[in-house]
């Protein structure tokens, strides 16, 4: 039989055109495909559950063989990290509480103001290009496309289409299509150790008031308890710059560009903290930790530096995540046709 006959060629062209048609309709957001996906997922679920149960011993054996050394080493490192972080955690809690109090006092929005939906991670992307995970909550829990998704460590991505009634897909921050506005903040300098012996006035006297209020500051004693005290002018504001973080694929770190690189903000160095910038069009609320600056790639002055950011969250070991039910303020106003949400 000849390889190419008009009938065969017609069939192949028909398949090609059908694929293109389906693709076009799906990308235009035809609602029927969401229903089809939901129905197909329901039909697939028993097969997936059975495959999960049946193949679990194989997977365990595989990880036992391949990952044992890594896991043992990681376990040791984690134990050391936990020991080191205990004191930091206590200090950090005190700072967070003070920060929340300050925000509440000034009536500023905080991350804790937004409702979240906790979801379990059902599966990771079976492909090699998409950095997408699937969660077990969806439209029924008020989840919408674009909402930020966080783990206990920080930002991990955003909800992407399609959002089904009982499940949704999360595009991770390493996905090449992921973009979010971020700000880079220098970590506060560590407290300097005292170089001189403590003055005798700071020795624990029997009267506690003597240790909290300097005796030569009469103004402090006249302030009512509820009055807010402005920060001393000698305190240096954290260095800050904003840019655009974009994913670079699973095997590369996300990068931040469009930085201004002005001396006003100070020089960005590895170890600086990357937080979401928020804003009226940003899909993620401000001040969600994203990661730490890993590398600073210097470019021309016009381009500004390029940063590689190591995410705080371990994107390969996600079990539970939180979807922040946050919509930017621009979403509540009349949308203008040329306005695009950044991130």
């Amino acid at each position, binding site marked *: 039989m000849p390889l190419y006959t008009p009938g*065969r060629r017609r069939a192949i062209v028909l398949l090609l055109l059908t694929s293109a048609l389906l693709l076009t309709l799906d990308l235009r957001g035809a609602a029927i495909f969401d229903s089809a996906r939901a129905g197909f997922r329901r039909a697939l679920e028993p097969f997936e559950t059975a495959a999960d149960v049946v193949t679990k011993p194989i997977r365990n054996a595989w990880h036992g063989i391949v990952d044992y050394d890594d896991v043992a080493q990681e376990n040791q490192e984690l134990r050391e990290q936990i020991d080191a972080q205990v004191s930091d955690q206590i200090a950090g809690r005190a700072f967070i509480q003070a920060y929340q109090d300050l925000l509440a006092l000034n009536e500023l929005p905080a991350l804790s103001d937004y409702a979240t939906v906790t979801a379990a991670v059902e*599966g990771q992307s079976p492909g090699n290009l998409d950095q997408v995970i699937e969660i077990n909550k969806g439209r029924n829990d008020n989840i919408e496309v674009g909402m930020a998704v966080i783990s206990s460590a920080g930002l991990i991505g955003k909800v992407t289409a399609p959002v089904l009634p009982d499940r949704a897909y999360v595009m991770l921050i390493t996905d090449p299509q992921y973009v979010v506005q971020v700000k880079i903040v220098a970590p506060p300098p560590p407290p300097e150790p005292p170089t001189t012996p403590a003055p005798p006035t700071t020795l624990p006297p029997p009267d506690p008031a003597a240790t909290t209020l300097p005796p030569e500051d009469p103004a402090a004693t006249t302030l009512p308890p509820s009055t807010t005290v402005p920060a001393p002018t000698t305190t240096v504001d954290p260095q800050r710059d904003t840019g655009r973080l974009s994913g670079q694929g699973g095997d590369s770190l996300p990068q931040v560009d469009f930085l201004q690189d002005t001396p006003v903000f100070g020089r960005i160095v590895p170890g600086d903290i990357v937080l979401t910038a928020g804003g009226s069009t940003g899909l993620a609320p401000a001040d969600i930790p994203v990661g730490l600056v890993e590398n600073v790639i210097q470019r021309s002055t016009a381009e500004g530096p390029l940063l590689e950011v190591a995410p705080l969250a371990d994107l390969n070991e996600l079990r539970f995540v939180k979807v922040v039910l946050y919509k930017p303020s621009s979403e509540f106003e009349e949308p203008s046709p040329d306005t695009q949400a950044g991130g």
Partner: protein
Amino acid sequence: MLASLVQGPLLRLAAVGFVVLGLQRTLFADLRPGGVALQVMLALAAAAGAAGGPQKGALAGFVLGLMYDLGSGTPLGSSSLTMGLGGYVAGYAQSITIEPHWWLAALFTGLGAAVGEAAVPIVRVFIGQEQSIGPHFGVVVAVVAVGAMVLSPLLVPVGRWCMRIKRPEWRAPKEPV
């Protein structure tokens, strides 16, 4: 019409597709040799092509790709294109032989899988998705191809059964006594 549906390959392909997709989303999404997820759905499409020729390979790839898209949330039709291409290429390579040995079928399956996987970023770029392809993508394509070759002794008979392909019965003419 119902009879043609029952007697055609679609039902068998869909039944096997559900099982293989279940494995793809659990076992093969978890075991990642070299950090690469083996694409067993694509390998099955290529195996069907290596067993039955370009038309059957393209059809198998189209159906399996649709199932993959519906189950994985990727744009509907994108995997149909890439898996259809993979099945077609494997089938086209098969058509140069009369009845390929198992190792030749494995080679064709690997070739089809490699072409199908390499086409994924191209299709994604065509539909406006930004892709960053680094040197690691070469490793991805190679591992997917080798994985498909290794799985082909299992997948080619499955593909043959799905597509209702019978082995050609070639017999040497008897010599006159």
